[in-house]
């Protein structure tokens, strides 16, 4: 197991915060290394890439219609076109598919997502469980074969993927929760997964505390992470906060993706975490997708964030 270097961590966090540039990450034995990305967003590493690539799209908020982006369908379509160019083996949608959990919003999102020719795996955001049934519409569409309120796991190319749900049963004044039932399921699920198997966990709200006053964290996330600490490579992907932020803790890398709909302010930098209106010509530099694939010649995964536009335009 590699030792964690706090100086490297500071650099990683700084680079991960860049709003418009592609950032490439390589996981080696669980510890990410930054690699430069050239102007075409292609890694500068050599040939021999595996066909295994998957994409992440998040916070499409179909139905949003405020000043921060009156056309989230349009920007979602652009993001999906970017994903298609990557020819991903599959795509993870890390929640807030819709703005208000309306049937027509789910319908529009499904229609847009059809343009992704590979399978898409979903987790719900808190905006997806606002229907009268408290998540019934989401679970009817996306919960088939899942446990509890929609959690599940699968394996692909030797990587174990775990979909966790942390937007149900929220309590006044508390951050998000996974709940004891889901944590017990995770413990059982990991029983058959060897410590050398790379694990990718994806969920909506960050499992780590990004900023408690805004509820940007999961109260019992540590209990889930405790079950993952013996693994050599763990990548935790989420959305919710509409900006790229990275954190490395031992062999666990935390990564939040951009939204395709609208930006939100940096933690604590505004009166509230509400939608952040930016000049129209800059909007697409705040929106984007994430690509994940193996690092050529290395055992880990690399993460590349791509904005819909670079430096405005």
């Amino acid at each position, binding site marked *: 197991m590699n030792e964690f270097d706090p100086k490297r961590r500071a650099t990683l966090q700084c680079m991960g915060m860049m709003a418009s540039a592609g950032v490439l990450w390589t996981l080696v034995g669980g510890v990410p290394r930054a690699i430069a990305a050239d102007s075409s967003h292609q890694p500068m590493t050599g040939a021999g890439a595996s066909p295994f690539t998957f994409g992440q799209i998040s916070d499409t908020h179909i139905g949003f219609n405020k000043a921060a982006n009156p056309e989230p369908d349009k920007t979602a379509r652009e993001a999906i076109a970017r994903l298609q160019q990557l020819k991903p083996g599959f795509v993870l949608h890390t929640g807030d598919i819709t703005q208000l959990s309306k049937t027509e919003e789910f319908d529009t999102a499904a229609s847009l997502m059809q343009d992704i020719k590979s399978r898409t795996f979903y987790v719900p955001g*808190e905006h997806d469980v606002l229907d009268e049934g408290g998540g019934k519409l989401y679970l009817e569409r996306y919960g088939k074969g899942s446990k509890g309120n929609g959690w599940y796991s699968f394996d692909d190319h030797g990587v174990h993927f775990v979909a966790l749900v942390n937007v149900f049963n929220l309590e006044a004044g508390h951050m998000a929760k996974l709940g004891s039932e889901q944590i017990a399921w995770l413990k059982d699920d990991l029983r058959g997964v060897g410590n050398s198997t790379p694990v990718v966990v994806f969920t909506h709200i960050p499992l780590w505390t990004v900023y408690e006053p805004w509820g940007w964290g999961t109260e019992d996330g540590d209990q889930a992470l405790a079950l993952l600490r013996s693994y050599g490579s763990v990548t935790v992907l989420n959305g919710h906060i509409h900006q790229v932020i990275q954190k490395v803790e031992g062999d666990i890398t935390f990564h939040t993706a951009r939204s395709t709909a609208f930006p939100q302010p940096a933690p604590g930098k505004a009166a509230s975490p509400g939608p952040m209106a930016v000049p129209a010509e800059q909007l697409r530099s705040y929106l984007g997708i994430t690509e994940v694939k193996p690092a050529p010649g290395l055992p880990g995964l690399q993460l590349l964030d791509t904005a819909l536009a670079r430096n405005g335009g």
Partner: protein
Amino acid sequence: MQWRMTLAAVALGLSAAVTAAPAEQIIEIKDYQFVPQDVTVPAGTKLTWVNKDDAPHNIVQKDIKLRSTALDTGDAWSFVVNESGTYTYFCSLHPEMTGTITVEARQQ
């Protein structure tokens, strides 16, 4: 516009003539806060939340099984409180947003 205002005034007058409208307490939702955050009202008061944010919010109080629809910008939702007591409620989209309602029994 003038006739609309007149109609509204007539409607209000008729309503007042039939039954006294319950007192109303408005609670604004702004910058992810309930304003005022804590209210004390007599039983029978109509509480109305109005969302002034660009993000949706809702009102949830589990003890009395209170759950509003999601309020988009400009939406309002009302509820008449009858049971005396103090209730902490929150927004289930943003559970850091909390408020309290203290309902006092009416004097006989």
